[in-house]
């Protein structure tokens, strides 16, 4: 049972909504949640985590989707001794109807602590805190109501994508449909570990990258176009009239030096071959400047966090690919990458690390692609070339 919680109580104050208030709300209805409050207060006092290394728990037929978790203070907080989480795969773009959402809540009220993360940082609904015995029944009910587990362990993790065409004028492909299609197509890869390590897919439908794909996904799909953006000169004039300093704030910030602004006639022009499609001018002059019409995506690979060889940003693999159902080209590429990585990757080695160890050249051959200058920031500086 949780006793006094002065430290957590302090975090109920202040303008930002309080997770402690939420924990206490759940605690009122659920003993595990109540004990969780105690465990966390103890951590605040001891300045140390009270969770042990997770054991392997799960549901029938799946190799992941559940994170086992045991407390190291079960005597004090017996109801939180087992506090596993379930990862529920989210609908593309994190769109919900309230009916579905309420169902998710109701099932969790029945089988879990009533605490959740909306969402985990990979994108899943994180259901926090249940016992081993409840995992299967909870899972069965979720499946019944149309929800399935996301990934954990050495599998494909739940793909995610930006809001895209649902609410954004800049979507260069249908990020929602693509993510849904890929997720459905790769259910086996999501649920049954067979790779060296985890693999993540994220899709942003334009270079603004609203799901931070380039930093967090082994396979990064970022929308772009091959023709030119278009400029409506009348709208340009409206921006200028409203006080925008087009030369300083737009033109001078263009990384491609592609824009020229003629103050005399108020016209803004683009040199299409110089535009690197950074989105800046489009972002800031949304009414005047529109993305191109020949749309698709750049495919990049290798993004990941620092463990173990340092962090990577994804790097360009395919400068341009059309992204259209049934998405055959992108799936073929994924299979080639997985095959190569599966064959050459060591245990706990992300694909970027395997590429780093074996060389990008070998990787390119492995996935049947030709080198192009778009793949590099610059050619090599050293003379240590293999022939």
């Amino acid at each position, binding site marked *: 049972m949780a006793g006094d919680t002065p430290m957590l109580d302090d975090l109920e104050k202040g303008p930002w909504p309080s997770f402690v208030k939420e924990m206490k709300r759940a605690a009122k209805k659920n003993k595990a949640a109540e004990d969780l409050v105690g465990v966390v207060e103890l951590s605040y006092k001891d*300045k140390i*985590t009270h969770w042990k290394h*997770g054991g392997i728990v799960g549901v029938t037929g799946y190799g992941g989707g559940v994170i086992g978790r045991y407390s190291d203070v079960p005597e004090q907080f017996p109801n939180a001794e087992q506090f596993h989480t379930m990862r529920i795969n989210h*609908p593309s773009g994190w769109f919900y109807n309230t009916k579905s959402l309420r169902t998710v809540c109701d099932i969790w009220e029945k089988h879990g602590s009533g605490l959740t993360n909306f969402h985990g940082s990979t994108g899943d609904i994180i259901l926090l805190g249940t016992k081993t015995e409840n995992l299967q029944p909870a899972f069965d009910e979720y499946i019944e109501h149309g929800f399935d587990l996301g990934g954990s362990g050495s599998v494909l993790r739940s793909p995610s994508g930006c809001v895209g065409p649902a609410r954004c004028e800049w979507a260069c492909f249908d990020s929602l449909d693509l993510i849904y299609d890929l997720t459905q197509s790769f259910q086996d890869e999501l649920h049954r570990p067979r790779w060296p390590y985890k693999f993540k897919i994220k899709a942003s439908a334009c270079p603004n990258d609203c799901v931070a794909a380039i930093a967090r996904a082994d396979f990064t799909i970022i929308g772009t176009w091959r023709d030119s953006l278009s400029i409506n000169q009348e709208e340009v004039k409206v921006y200028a009239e409203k006080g925008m300093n087009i030369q300083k704030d737009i033109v001078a910030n263009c*990384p491609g030096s592609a824009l020229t602004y003629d103050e005399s006639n108020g016209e803004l022009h683009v040199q299409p071959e110089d535009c690197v499609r950074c*989105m800046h001018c489009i972002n800031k002059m949304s009414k005047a400047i529109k993305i191109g019409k020949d749309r698709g995506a750049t495919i990049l690979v290798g993004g990941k966090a620092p463990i173990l060889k340092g962090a990577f940003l994804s790097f360009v693999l395919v400068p341009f690919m059309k992204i259209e159902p049934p998405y055959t080209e992108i799936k073929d590429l994924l299979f080639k990458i997985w095959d190569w990585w599966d064959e050459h990757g060591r245990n706990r080695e992300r694909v970027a690390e395997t590429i780093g160890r074996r060389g990008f050249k070998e990787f390119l051959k492995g996935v049947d692609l030709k080198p192009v200058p778009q793949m590099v920031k610059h050619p090599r500086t050293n003379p240590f070339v293999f022939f």
Partner: protein
Amino acid sequence: MKKTDIGPPDFRMMLPDIIKENYGKWQHHEILKPGLMKHVAESGSELYTVRVGSPRLVSIDFIRDICDVADKYCDGFLRFTSRSNVELLVSKKENVEPMIEDIKKLGLPIGGIGDCISNIVHTQGWIHCHSSATDASGLVKAIMDELIEYFTEFKLHAKLRIAVACCINMCGAVHCSDLAIVGIHTKPPKIDNSKLSAVCEIPSTIASCPTGAIHRHPDKNINGLELKEERCMYCGNCYTVCPAMPLADPVGDGVAIYVGGKVSNARKAPMFSKLAVPFIPNNPPRWPEVTSVLKNIVEVYAKNSRKYERMGEWIERVGWERFFSLTGIQFTEQHIDDFSGAMDTLRSTTQFRW
């Protein structure tokens, strides 16, 4: 056979009519005030989005509250953002203000759209993770309480993305955030040789250490491991592989602060965050030293940056030497890289500021 592998629900079930009708046909948008924007479709339809701050760690009753609002004003649809905010999508203009009132009654902040601080991407911390060197939810609450005005008002020249990770596994885009708070250990693992051989595989534990700090215990009678402590960089990789090597320590644990990362391709290419403050000990429940450093950085940035300039763009323009002098943060030997590729980070030009 049991039903499995059905995947997530089809998102099409989750879209309100206005989105279905104008799918892929949005024309432009306008940010009307903090937390409120309007998208206009080619058809002329207008969609209002109200963005609501969430603690992310929520009870099911929180979700139900939000569902009530969505039922009342949004035909029963809503979404979450990639930074865990709630977005309420309104097709009737007249619903916007009453809805905002209702949300305020729930005690939830509205903001995060446009040039401001949005919700903090974060992780599990002491709530759930065995790896954590700090708490995540508590840090987020303490920081957002301090910086709330940057969420609810326009006080910046660009977006400012904050992330918190409770250990250097960095679950989140922490390594590419304008401001990143990362839990770190600063003491080597404490090897428990009494249970080690029972729970860990000795060779793979040795192999897990990137610096080669772990070796077999020299005493032949002990079937366990020993550490060259001076070689340990507290990465925790051994602990991930072997539970008998915990690093967590009430004194040694705390956070580091990294700054100036971004992921968008707008203007400058994506950048990693760089070390600003190497270590601040944990001081729950409010980590006052952390929040004051952050507030200072945000204020200095807000004052010195130019229009549209993200944190990292500003620092690149004025130089890191200026960043340190303007913020008053001390530059130490820890700031100088000594990981692989470190030599590339040394300044090979005479171009710098005093």
